[in-house]
């Protein structure tokens, strides 16, 4: 294994900016994990599928609106805006369905937390495979010819039909920051700040924090905990839908199993920042994205994922509650 610090030094700005862009997507997905964990203390393993459905929602919306490689200018911007809204809606609906079918029955029965993880794993399999078998499912309804564009080659990667031109905006060092970089990082930051303010300042947000701190007292104070849990999943889904749109702008392709690795990374980001802590998710995501890029520059891209996990292990050993500590819920040991 050769260590290549020269490459890192030469491309420092480029690696950092692209790392931040990737990290923003991790951070947005991490919010879903961190909020559910903060309120229910369980790992929402199926959140990765919420994200994956968002990526497909983007592709299908663009197909439906007739997007092609020639689409450009304002019509492209409008299409992407619609795709963003659709992706957020789809992801939010999937997240709510998940809550209703995979979690609520267990919470009602006060099942052990480990069993909720198993239920989530089952839900994750069902959701991912349903997407991977969409061709067969459409065939079962006799729709495969009408929907060929949407359901064809279900097991392969699917890409967005439009082409997004990368335009240089300004230069830092020797790297020109493009419109895509700026859009992804900027949009993610705006979403995060909005969510953070919502949870901190609004009445509903206060309910979320109350349930996270002490569910029983919150219930006694008149907080409807089922509504709060639904709201948590809804917000997580919206963020995942936004993340999915930004991911498609940046990467451009997805697959029925694309959620898995991204989900693991996003969860890593959440733990890294301090699970249950919204600002921690942002910090964790950005740190993870940048560290991955730097690490893979030094020891080779094939070790990229190893860098992410080693970073996680090292940070947890020295700061067992993550970089910013747990905060949405009460501190746990």
């Amino acid at each position, binding site marked *: 294994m050769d260590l290549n610090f020269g490459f890192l030094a030469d491309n420092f700005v480029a690696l950092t900016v692209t790392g931040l862009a990737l990290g923003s997507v991790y951070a947005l997905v991490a919010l879903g994990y961190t909020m559910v964990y903060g309120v229910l203390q369980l790992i929402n393993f199926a959140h990765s599928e919420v994200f994956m459905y968002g990526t497909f929602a983007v592709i299908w919306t663009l197909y439906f609106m007739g997007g092609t490689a020639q689409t450009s200018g304002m019509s492209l911007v409008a299409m992407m805006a619609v795709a963003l809204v659709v992706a957020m809606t789809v992801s939010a609906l999937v997240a709510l369905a998940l809550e209703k079918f995979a979690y609520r029955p267990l919470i009602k029965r006060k099942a*052990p937390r480990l069993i909720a993880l198993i239920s989530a*794993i*089952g*839900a994750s399999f069902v959701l991912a495979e349903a997407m991977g078998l969409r061709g067969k499912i459409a065939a079962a309804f006799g729709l495969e010819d009408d929907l060929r564009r949407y359901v064809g080659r279900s097991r392969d990667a699917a890409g967005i039909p439009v082409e997004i031109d990368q335009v240089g905006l300004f230069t830092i060092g020797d790297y020109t920051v493009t419109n895509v970089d700026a859009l992804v990082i900027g949009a993610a930051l705006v979403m995060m700040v909005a969510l953070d303010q919502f949870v901190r300042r609004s009445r509903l947000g206060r309910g979320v924090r109350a349930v996270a701190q002490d569910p029983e007292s919150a219930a006694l104070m008149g907080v409807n905990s089922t509504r709060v849990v639904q709201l948590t999943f809804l917000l997580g889904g919206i963020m995942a839908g936004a993340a999915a749109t930004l991911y498609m702008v940046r990467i451009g392709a997805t697959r029925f199993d694309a959620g898995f690795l991204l989900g693991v990374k996003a969860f890593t980001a959440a733990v890294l920042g301090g699970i249950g802590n919204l600002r921690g998710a942002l910090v964790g995501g950005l740190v993870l994205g940048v560290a991955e890029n730097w690490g893979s520059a030094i020891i080779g891209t094939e070790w990229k994922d190893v860098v992410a996990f080693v970073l996680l292990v090292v940070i947890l050993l020295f700061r067992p509650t993550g970089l910013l500590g747990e905060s949405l819920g009460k501190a746990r040991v």
Partner: protein
Amino acid sequence: MNRLSSFNLAVRQRFAAMPKALRLLFLLAVALFFYALPVLNLPGLSTPDTDFGGVLFTVSVYVLVALGLNIVVGYAGLLDLGYVGFYAVGAYTVAVLTTEHASIPFLLVIPIAVAVSMISGVLLGWPTLRVRGDYLAIVTLGFGEIIRLTLVNSEWLGGAAGISRIQRPADMPMFDVPQLDWSTGAPLLDLDDTVPFLQFAGPGSQYSWYWFALSIIIVVLFADKLIKDSRVGRAWEATREDEDAAELMGVPTFRFKLLAFSMGAFVGGLAGALFAGRQAFVSPQSFALLLSILFLAAVVLGGQGNRWGVIVGAALVVYLPERFRGLEEWRVLVFGAVLMILAIYRPQGLLPPTRTVRATRSEEQVDLDERGLDGKETAHG
């Protein structure tokens, strides 16, 4: 839900009340049945679309893995999402030492593989077991992935292509075992369709591998019972139920957690070594994160903490998809749905430990008492 639990409890009490000689005889009969299972060709049970002996071998490897993971998750209460790492260490030790970089005979490599797995368990456990709960889950998941990605990227370990032509134990074909034939409706010994005994390569070898694995399972089960009923087992239970309280009572929890981790790694490595021997080929694809999750599902579904429960869980996780191979591409989806349904309707697993059944009962009773209701009127269905 309670009806099955009561039945389960009643059966176990009845069994415990039997004289010791009778209990041993019963267990012996069960063991004999499982040794004979591959040649019985029981109608309805055998898998029609795949080779039943092969399926039984896979089941027995999973059972071994589940028994190992049960020590970590069920007894010590440590959620391990990277257990496949130890399985991989065992398999790769066999691959490297019999073929790639040395040629030590298979049966001699097994103890080495087990020792290496155990050492890796201590090495991974030493830093990680200081974190608790879900953090431990994600750290172990990270370690499992690190092991897999290292296998992919390391040329010394064969890279992504893996290592093939792993040496098997020497054949000692002693005699042939006849299969049973049910085609006439009654069992008949079929002397033309036989299975070689103690032959580890070529067609029919899966039966010998199965018998080999089954023998190891029986040994592991004995060891498991001895440990569970010893001071160590009680220390694990105390740690699982309340770590701080256990520490206050003078249980060195960290040391016992590390012990559980390395024991689990021991059994996982053993299972990996068997897997590598039978397949004669290992590659990183065989050790994906998904497999860790499948192992965990086997333990939790079967009933974590009960060795018979996790055996049932492991058998179901392998057997159901093979039995219904006709469903082909739908089987992962169906498997996911079954996981969800079982999680919702049997959260303690199919065969929970007696202790859990009793604890759940008393909790339910306390709940009812608090609400001031008569338990009989509102008993949960």
